[in-house]
């Protein structure tokens, strides 16, 4: 059911979400609503890799495809500003806290800090 083909954890219909007028605010709000949040672009293969990474660990990430949201462009820009211009999707939040782009996610998995964060956020058990 999860992580088969295109059904990632849960795709939340964003139009039903509360509309913060500031894109940054919206990002933060969405990020805090699930244990693991990935801001992605549907055609991006690195985003696919990020999704596979979490699924492979038994985690169900909440994915927001920015190219499928009417306000996705603004949110993408807000995220880029937050992270510095060289960083792009996928961008991962765990327990409402910003982890970063693929670089940071990989680094924190290798150095062992990712799993404790996931457990803390309730995304992983044992």
């Amino acid at each position: 059911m999860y992580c088969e083909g295109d059904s990632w954890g849960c795709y939340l219909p964003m139009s039903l979400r509360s509309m913060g007028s500031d894109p940054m605010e919206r990002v933060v709000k969405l990020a805090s609503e699930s244990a693991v949040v990935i801001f992605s672009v549907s055609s991006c293969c690195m985003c696919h890799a990020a999704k596979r990474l979490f699924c492979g660990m038994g985690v169900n990430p909440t994915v927001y495809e920015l190219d499928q949201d009417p306000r996705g462009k603004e949110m993408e820009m807000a995220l880029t500003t937050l992270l510095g211009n060289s960083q792009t999707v996928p961008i991962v939040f765990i327990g409402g806290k910003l982890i970063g782009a693929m670089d940071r996610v990989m680094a924190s998995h290798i150095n062992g800090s990712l799993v404790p964060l996931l457990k803390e956020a309730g995304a992983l058990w044992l």
Partner: protein
Amino acid sequence: MNSPTPQFVPSRLSIYEPIHQIGIWGENFKRNGNPNTSTSLIVEVDNKLENESETTSHEMLAPTNNYEQEASKPIDKIQRRLAQNREAARKSRLRKKAYVQQLENSRLKLIQLEQELQRVTQQGLYMGGVLEGSHIGFSGTVNSGIAAFEMEYGRWVDVQHRQICELRTALNAHISDIELRILVKSGMGHYFELFRMKSTVAKADVFYVISGVWKTSAERFFSWIGGFRPSELLKLDPLTEQQILEVCNLKQSCQQAEDALSQGMEKLQETVSSTVAGGPVAEDSYIPQVATAMEKLEALVSFVNQADHLRQETLQQMSRILTTRQAARGLLALGEYFHRLRALSTLWATRPPEPSLP
């Protein structure tokens, strides 16, 4: 050649002031446009008196016999000295001309060799099975990026080999941990340097990096996204219980990260493939599909970078888990492993041809 025929200056000068003469002679040198043959040459000639062929001196001297020999001996000597100077200056100019000619030739040769190298590199890429190369030429910048990388990589391998030998010696000699730490750090730094080099050339031609043509054939056999598998690093020595646990966790994370990137790569292949194949086949126009596919291929660069990033992080985590001595042994084993793979490649390439069966 502009050097004037030897002038017998004394015929133009009043002879009786030797120092004055030498001064003017110095000027003469300069007016000949030869700043190198400065007045110091005059001093040089003194030292060269034995070296200068006596025959030339005699030749020069012969005409001076036409001068009044009743003139005082010192004047004779001075004239002879001046003549020798002229000769020395002339020879010096000739030598300089020859040297400059040689430099020019070498420069031309160098340009030719560089062009040859570029051409051969291109051919190497063609023979790597890159079919499109025969239809679409490589730009100059791609070639120079690749040529530069190949040279740097050659040097990298040499330094790598030297470091491996140093590590081996150090471990056998039981040097202090502090000194060993320095070797470990520079060993790791050397790998990080390679990742930087790869990142640069990946921007010029990512297919070059991914194809692994820059490596030997046996290394290429094990290649994963343009390099070695990070999990290759994790074949290890005796470990303490704590270490066994940490290495086990690292192995698992590493494997998961590798799998994620591999799946991302597969998705990229599918995407590019379906883009290229897309659109009505009945029509002859494929430019839009190919153009779109090109955009998607840009993602390949980020995969190569991410793979190298994974290698780097794994190396660093290993150095945190292990003691200095263990890390040194690990680096030695890794370097030795690649060294043996290269030897295997060479051996394979030079194996005798298989006898054909009747």
